[in-house]
């Protein structure tokens, strides 16, 4: 049927036909090419430093070699901006097929039904992995534990010796800790007893909550904030005293200061151990379990990296295949040895590499009494309020009990909002 043409515009119409023809050819070409095309899955992950990244690439290459019809596209995220990018991706439906999430971020997405329910598959592996709590929500499982990390006490033996503290007896209780930190802080020169985190996000609460837990605290009691309990007051009062003999800075600078021998005690993770081992000028140091409240037990913060599949993924099967590959004990172990984390796979974590190394073994032991961030859909907001309370007390303007009182009323108000 001839097309009806407006008078005076035949040339346009010819052009349109040519263009239309070209378009058709292109579309057909696209259809034909699709048949033998590989499936490409995207993986968003956080391991970008020079030690981890080559291993990530190696793992991906091995997987692609074993699965010639699957391509894995790796997209790097940063800790500072990653959370934002992920939320935006979920909001706009541009999520990847496999996503690495920090333990404290999973609930925000699992609670809103944005992650693929992996319960059926995961239940078959339950006892092979540790720390499932962060990916569980209302009885379903939304991801796999991948890498586990905890924080322990690092102490500087050189400074302890100078302060006449027995280096074979690192502090086991809060009062020992405080008196040793004070002794070091009184030394001459630019040295400090303790390393106190400042305004960085996602950091400070990880230092404070273990103390709170060690004093017997629970964040929520009967659905209400219980930060202002006796345990909260005890923990915050102690932390404030510790900060008084401390230097304030961001985590990276604190780690560096410890490495340069300027800090007596710091709470840090496996990355600092790696840093100290690589640096020939490191001071003599030791690692110990987190000191316990004088009446409590040693508790630390456990964080972990989890692998999840967003619900929108159209390659869920391939994604699952890739996750299975990453979680194989030998792959889990390989990556952990490079980055210093403990494998979530219990068989890999039992490797002599972790159990026989006196330093790494402290992490292994600490993991047994470590707790993760409470699973809560609004955790990111709650965390900011807890950090606000700690900061208020740290900078001295507010008493610990009124700081905690305020945080609790803020948190309760947040929980009451729809």
């Amino acid at each position: 049927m001839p097309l009806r043409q407006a008078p005076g515009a035949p040339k346009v119409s010819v052009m349109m036909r040519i263009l239309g023809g070209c378009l058709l050819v292109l579309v057909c070409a696209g259809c034909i090419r699709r048949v033998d095309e590989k499936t490409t899955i995207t993986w968003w992950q956080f391991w970008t430093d020079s030690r981890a990244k080559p291993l990530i690439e190696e793992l991906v290459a091995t997987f692609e070699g074993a699965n010639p019809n699957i391509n894995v596209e790796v997209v790097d995220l940063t800790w500072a901006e990653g959370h934002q990018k992920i939320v935006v991706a979920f909001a706009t439906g541009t999520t990847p097929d496999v996503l690495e999430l920090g333990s404290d971020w999973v609930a925000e997405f699992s609670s809103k039904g944005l992650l693929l329910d992996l319960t059926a598959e995961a239940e078959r592996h339950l006892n092979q992995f540790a720390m499932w709590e962060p990916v569980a929500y209302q009885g379903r499982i939304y991801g796999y534990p991948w890498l586990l990390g905890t924080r322990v006490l690092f102490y500087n033996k050189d400074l302890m010796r100078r302060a006449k503290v027995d280096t074979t007896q690192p502090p086991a209780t809060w009062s020992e800790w405080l008196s040793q930190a004070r002794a070091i802080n009184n030394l001459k020169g630019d040295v400090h007893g303790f390393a106190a985190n400042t305004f960085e996000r996602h950091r400070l609460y990880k230092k404070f909550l273990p103390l709170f837990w060690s004093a017997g605290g629970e964040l929520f009691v009967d659905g209400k904030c219980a930060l202002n309990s006796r345990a909260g007051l005890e923990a915050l009062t102690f932390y404030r005293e510790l900060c008084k003999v401390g230097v304030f800075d961001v985590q990276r600078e604190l780690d560096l200061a410890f490495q340069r021998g300027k800090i007596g005690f710091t709470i840090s993770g496996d990355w600092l151990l790696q840093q100290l081992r690589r640096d020939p000028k490191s001071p003599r140091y030791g690692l110990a379990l987190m000191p316990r409240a004088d009446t409590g037990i040693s508790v630390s913060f456990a964080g972990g990296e989890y692998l999840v599949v967003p619900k929108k993924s159209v390659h869920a099967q391939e994604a699952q295949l890739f996750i299975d590959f990453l979680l194989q004990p030998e792959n889990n172990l390989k990556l952990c040895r490079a980055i210093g984390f403990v494998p979530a796979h219990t068989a890999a974590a039992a490797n002599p590499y972790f159990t026989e190394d006196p330093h790494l073994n402290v992490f292994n032991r600490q993991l047994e009494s470590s707790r993760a961030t409470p699973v809560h859909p609004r955790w990111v907001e709650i965390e900011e309020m807890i950090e606000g309370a700690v900061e208020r007390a740290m900078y001295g303007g507010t008493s610990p009990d009124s700081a905690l009182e305020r945080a609790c009323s803020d948190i309760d108000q947040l929980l009451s909002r729809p």
Partner: protein
Amino acid sequence: MKPLWRRPAVWLVAPWAISFVAFWLFPLGFALYLAFTSYSPLGGDLSFVGPQNFVRLWGDGDFWQAARNTLLFVGVTVPVTTALALGLALLLNSRIRGRGLFRAAFFFPSITSLVVVALVWTALYTRDGVLSSVAVALGFTPPEHGFLLSTSTALPAIMLLDVWAAVGYYMLLYLAALQALPAEYFESARLLAASRWQTLRFVIWPALRPMTLLVLVLNTIKSFQVFIEVYVMTRGGPLGSTRTLVYFVYNEGLVKFDMGYASAAAFALFALVAAVSLVLARRLGFGKEIAV
């Protein structure tokens, strides 16, 4: 009458008009709507909730702290920057040795990325940074943990950086205005035996009034939106002492993803900027002829 799409003017205006509507007018209107919802990108609820975001804002201590910090920031940096810019422009308009070098040197911060500048100044402000040593040498006691980690010095430290970074640009504007002044003004001043101060007060200052207005309005609007320095250097800390309104909006909207609340705060900021700009324009006689 030709149909609309046949008129060339329509086609010429269209690219701008479309982008204006799509990327400016629509988002603005949508943000106003969002301010009356409790929308979050993950929750996705767009239902109208009335003015509750504004009510919450009214009772939010963090918001008022941010508003106070912002007003203080604007109130201090804008006059200081303007005065310094004018002073530098007058100096560099006279025939002094190395004039070109100085002009370039003062303008240099304006062409450097503010992120880079902020990172460099962060290093200067640390506990063992240069400025602490300078303070000690001058007999002052610098803050124990560095300038950016003390609630009393963090905001002034950022203000100082902002003045340093902004002054060159406004100096250039003043310099251009000074060079555009007719030589007759100065000649008549000389003939009337005006002193230097009188020349400045009664000739140069009134003649520069349109430029002063431009500098003040530009700088006020820019200073109300201060964000990069805060984001890079302190993230609003310590204890919210450097939290500004834009940082507050960012934190509510893009960290906590409470878009409705963030939109409400953004409109509060908009109202504040509009009010201050209007007052400025009125006080300085916007649109009046220059009387010499």
